[in-house]
Structures are given as C-alpha cells and as structure tokens.
C-alpha cells in the first residue's frame, strides 16, 4: 500500500516535471510567448509601480547622500587650504631651521671670530652695484667694512650702514676686490666681481708659473687687511692662460647662490685697516 502511494507520488512528480521541461522548451523557442505576455503585462505593470516607488526612495536617498558628500567635500577643501597654509609655514620654519643650523655649525667651527646673524631684507636698488640689505645696523654694532659671510663662503662687506640696516657690497660687484690665496699652490691673487648675481667672479694676477687646477678652492689671504684670512670664497671653474699676458686669470664660482640668500653672518670683531698711510712718503 505504502509502496504504491510512493510510486504514485513519484509518477505525479515525474509528470509535473515533464510538463515543466516542456514549458521550458516551449518558452525557449517562443511558442508560448503570447501566453507569457498575457501574464507578464499585469505583473510587469505592478512591478513598474513598485520599482517607481523604490526608485524615488533611492533617488531621494541618493540626493541626501550627494548633499552630504558636497558638504563633506566643502569641509575637506577648507581643511585642505588650512593645512596647506600650515604646511607652507612649517616648511618655511624648517628651511630657516636648516639654514640657521648650518650657520651655527659654521660659527662653532671658527675661532677668534664673533658673529652677528642678520636677515637679508632687500637687494641693491641699482643694477650697477651688486648688494644686499640686511636688518642690522649701527645699533647692533655694525660699522662700514665689516666682512659678511655664510657657512658657504664670503658674501662681501658692509658698504653703507644706517641705524637699523646695512648695505652689503657683494663680492660679485664689479668694484669689489678681495685678496685671495689658492688652496694648493698658496699663490696670491685678487678676486674681482663681474656684476653677475650667479656668483661668477674672476681670479686675477696669478703668476704664470702657478699651476691652477679646476675645482681648486680659494680662500681670503688677509692681505690688504680688508678681510680676515682663510674665509672660503669660491672654487676655480676654468683657467684662461694667454701667453702674451704677464699673469694668468681664472673663472671662479662662489658656492653661494646670491639670488636666494636669506641669512648672513657679520663678523663683528674684525676691523679693516687702512694701509694707504704706509704708501705716503715720509716727510
């Protein structure tokens, strides 16, 4: 009895599945398409209604989300501007810190010299004088002729001074002459500016028998008593040796970028001496 019941069920199921497979086949080939459309029309209409309702809800949600995103975006942009300002300020502080650290290291490495740190606040107003203006003057103890330097080398010397500012004649100025010495040969010469802010200067009056090598460092010699000895001035770039000349010349480049100079050190305990008195014949 039970077996018959089970077999009957199986047969019924088999028959129904067969009907389903037939339906699938007919649907695939499109034979029952009109019948499907008959049912699909009202169902599709109802589905469209529901879709419209949910679509409107989702669109409102999306609109709300877009508004939130716009607000968030505006907030983030404001924060970005603020952070960029802070970043610029911090970079500036960091750059100042690096420069001052280098200057401090230089000061520590030099003996018997007293320095005063000054900020560069301007450049020479006239093109025929290569100069910078610093924010220290006579009130800080500065006087005309004091050498100005950085950790990278000689900058120039104070040319004019007011109570709060001073004008520094750069070594690149055409009227600047600095007595120097070559590091290897110890030969003496004179550095004259070429009026260029690139830091290019000329080394003059070197004896013809002196062997000058490119890359050789040049230091102040202290001759003439305008500058203390052994301050770095620059590096030989090229040598022009003309046989008809009595001396040889060299192109020298300062290690300082004069166009971006921001801080300098004034050597305050050096007093230039006027040696011209010895040139006058005794009465």
């Amino acid at each position, binding site marked *: 009895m039970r077996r018959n019941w089970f077999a009957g069920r199986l047969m019924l199921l088999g028959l129904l599945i067969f009907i389903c497979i037939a339906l*699938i086949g007919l649907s*695939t080939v499109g034979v029952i398409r009109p019948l499907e459309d008959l049912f699909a029309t009202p169902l599709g209409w109802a589905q469209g209604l529901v879709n419209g309702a949910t679509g409107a809800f989702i669109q409102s949600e999306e609109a709300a989300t877009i508004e939130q995103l716009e607000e968030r975006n505006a907030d983030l942009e404001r924060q970005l501007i603020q952070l960029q300002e802070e970043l610029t300020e911090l970079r500036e502080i960091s750059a100042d810190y690096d420069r001052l650290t280098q200057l401090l290291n230089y000061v520590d490495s030099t003996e018997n010299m007293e320095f005063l740190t000054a900020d560069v606040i301007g450049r020479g107003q006239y093109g025929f004088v290569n100069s910078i203006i610093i924010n220290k003057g006579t009130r800080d103890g500065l006087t005309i002729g004091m050498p100005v330097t950085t950790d990278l080398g000689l900058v120039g010397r104070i040319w004019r001074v007011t109570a709060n500012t001073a004008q520094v004649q750069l070594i690149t100025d055409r009227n600047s002459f600095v007595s120097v010495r070559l590091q290897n040969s110890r030969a003496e010469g004179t550095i004259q500016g070429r009026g260029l802010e690139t830091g290019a200067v000329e080394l003059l009056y070197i004896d013809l028998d002196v062997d000058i090598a490119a890359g050789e460092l040049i230091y102040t010699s202290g001759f003439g008593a305008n500058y203390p000895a052994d301050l770095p001035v620059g590096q030989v770039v090229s040598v022009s040796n003309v046989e008809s000349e009595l001396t040889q010349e060299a192109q020298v480049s300062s290690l300082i970028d004069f166009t971006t100079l921001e801080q300098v050190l004034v050597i305050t305990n050096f007093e230039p001496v006027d040696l011209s008195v010895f040139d006058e014949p005794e009465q």
Partner: protein
Amino acid sequence: MGYYLGLIFLCVFAILENSVLIDMRIFIGRFTELDAFYGQPSLVLIAVIAWSWHSDLSESIFWAFAGGIALDILNPIVPTGTSVIALLVMVFAVKTIERMFYQVSIFALVAFVAVGTILHHVILFSIFSIQGVALEPLTYFQAYTIPTLAFNLFGTMPMYWILRRFQKRLPQRQNPWAVQR
C-alpha cells in the same frame, strides 16, 4: 481559498523579489562595497515551502506552479518553468517527509528551505549553462548561492509565521480534486 490567496501572495512576492529586493541589494552593495554580493531573499521559494507545510498536496502544487511561473515571467533571463521544477521537488519532499514521520519539527522547514535554495540555484545554473552563459561554478556558488542561502535561512521562520496566521483563518473546505495525503 488558499488558491486565491496563493495567487495574490505569490505575485506580490515575485514582484518584490524582482524589484525592491534587487534595488535593496544594489543600494546596500554601494555602502558595503561588496561587489560580488549578489544574493537576496527568495521570497517565493520560502513562501511555497512554508505554505506546503500545512496545506494539502494539490494546493501546494498550485502554489509551486503559480510562484514559479510568476518568478520566471518577471525574470526574462530564464525560460518559463525553470523555477517551478525546484519548487515542485521541494513541495513533494515536504509532503513525503510529512507522511513518513508522525511528527516533524517545524525547524525542519529551515532545512527544506536550505535544500530548496541550493536545488533552485543548481537548476538555474544548469539552465544558464545550457543557454551558453559562461559562469564559474565556484564563483556562482560563493557570490550568489551562499548569500541567498543566508537570507533565506533567516527569513524562513518570519515568513512561516506570517503565512501561518493567514492559513489558520482560511475555512477548512474539502477539495474534491485534492490529492490524498
């Protein structure tokens, strides 16, 4: 009465399954960033199995046909009759188990839904494969079947509870064409 109610319920469930639940799935997917999450509750499948738990075989077969055809008509990717096979098999399984054992725990319904979900997906996968749709079985199973299974298992008891409340209020009328249990 169960026949008419079935038509209404199943049409509503099929429409919901092919509209709201799809939108919901996409909407949630945007926030959860789970692109491979294609699963959604199979309302019709759960409803047919849950209804068949306390109804006679003929009514259950009607529910299986009505639900399956409604689903397939609203889902033009598959030919009509595809979903009916899985529903029919599950209805017969429920009625056979019911007959074989004196008492079956209501929680067995969850197991039937689980088996029905897998069977439904196997049939869908087979139909897709016959139609030449390139599908990776493992990817299909992971991204579609497992999430659907999870939704269905959570949704079985609430669906049973709702349908049972309607079922109890229906007049118990002997159907002369009903197949004997």
